[in-house]
């Protein structure tokens, strides 16, 4: 082993109008809907990083989101990535000022590919996270926009290579085909992507149980992190148990 760099476990929180959508209900704990409370909870339970996804459409909601982000960033001392509604460099500026460490751009980069170059030049590659929703179309990995609703026709591997070349420092790869199915990560698709670029890859979509993460990291040593939402929020996977199991399996992890 040449490094003990830990494989990262990342819960993703969807935030709408200042609250976590669905909230979280753990054994013996009351329902948590405050992003601040939940972020603190995850931070204490061993999450390596957090993703806040702003699913608000209105400008009032956006203001609430940045307020709640500021409050969270003041209290949580692990890396925070913010996504949702990032369409211009000014959006990077807005969330970075509220304490985000990295900014994740998805449909915004499809509409305006220059955003990656500009943001990387201003804030550094490490700050720019490309998020991609991918679905198989006639056997080809294809990029979808607007939360998976619009087929862009773009080849996923080519798109990711281009964005990394432009300065995306990390890629969140979300498989629409496995998302929500809880049958495991999309190993085939993640392999195609992780073989193509040399920046950290965060796997998303399909985690249903602890073993899915173990399989992911064992099958694809080039994948750096696993991201999930509901399985963490509903307590189906406890992060500390997941990490203990990773360690048992020889996967470097921060306990």
């Amino acid at each position, binding site marked *: 082993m040449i*490094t003990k*760099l830990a494989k990262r476990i990342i819960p993703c929180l969807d935030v709408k109008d200042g609250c976590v959508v669905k909230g979280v209900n753990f054994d013996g704990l009351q329902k948590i809907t405050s992003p601040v409370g939940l972020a603190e909870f995850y*931070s204490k339970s061993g999450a390596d990083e957090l993703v806040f996804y702003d699913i608000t459409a209105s400008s009032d909601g956006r203001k609430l989101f940045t307020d709640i982000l500021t409050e969270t960033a003041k209290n949580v001392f*692990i890396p925070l990535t913010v996504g949702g509604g990032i369409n211009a460099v000014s959006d990077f500026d807005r969330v970075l000022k509220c304490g985000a460490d990295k900014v994740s751009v998805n449909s915004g980069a499809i509409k305006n590919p220059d955003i990656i170059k500009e943001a990387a030049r201003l804030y550094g590659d490490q700050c720019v996270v490309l998020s991609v929703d991918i679905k198989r179309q006639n056997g080809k990995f294809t990029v979808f926009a607007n939360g998976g609703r619009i087929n862009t026709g773009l080849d996923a591997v080519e798109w990711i290579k281009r964005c990394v070349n432009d300065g995306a*420092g990390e890629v969140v790869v979300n498989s629409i085909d496995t998302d929500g199915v809880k049958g495991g990560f999309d190993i085939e698709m993640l392999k195609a992507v992780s073989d193509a670029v040399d920046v950290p890859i965060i796997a998303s979509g399909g985690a249903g149980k602890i073993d899915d993460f173990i399989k992911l990291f064992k099958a694809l040593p080039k994948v750096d992190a696993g991201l999930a939402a509901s399985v963490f929020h509903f307590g189906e996977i406890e992060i500390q148990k997941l990490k203990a199991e990773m360690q048992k399996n020889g996967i470097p992890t921060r306990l």
Partner: protein
Amino acid sequence: MTAIINYGVGNLFSLVSSLEKIGNDAIITSDISEIENADRIILPGVGAFEDAAKKLFESGLVPAVKKAAQNGMPILGICLGMQLLFDYSLEYGRHEGLSMIPGKILPIPTDKSLKIPHMGWNVLNFQNGKHPLFKYINDKDYVYFVHSFYAECDDKNIIAKTEYGKELTAAVARENVMGCQFHPEKSSECGLSILRAFCEMKKGDFAQC
């Protein structure tokens, strides 16, 4: 009171928040008298060495920082702030640093199996015993790194290393001048504990150099 040197580089939000969290009163300052009257100094920094060094020298604060160091004031450089403490960097050309710790900044040797930047949580391996900066943490604790360059210097000034292809300098100290390559403000409880230990240090804790 801790003076965070403001020379127009980087986002200080997390650093200020983490110092607030541990109950330390900190000011972001580019005022020489505030620096002189502080109990300790933090030199932050992210981005490219050349740009940061240029801004720091142009800020006119370098003599105040060096004088404070000579008077025994504890100084902590964080990430690029740590790299600036050294003689020079070879990041896109050769650029002079503050020469407060002998050594140079080099690119992390690239090995196809490892990605650059070195980003994520990695293990601290204490060197030369347990430095006072680490009094509240343990050897092998994890901290959060984001960097593509590293400090090469005399082993006697290295207080922690981390393994990434080769052993990389993770933290340094030369008397009252200290630095960490990782981000304590992003390293959860472990990072806050390092900042707490630093914020308990004051002038006179170290032999004057």
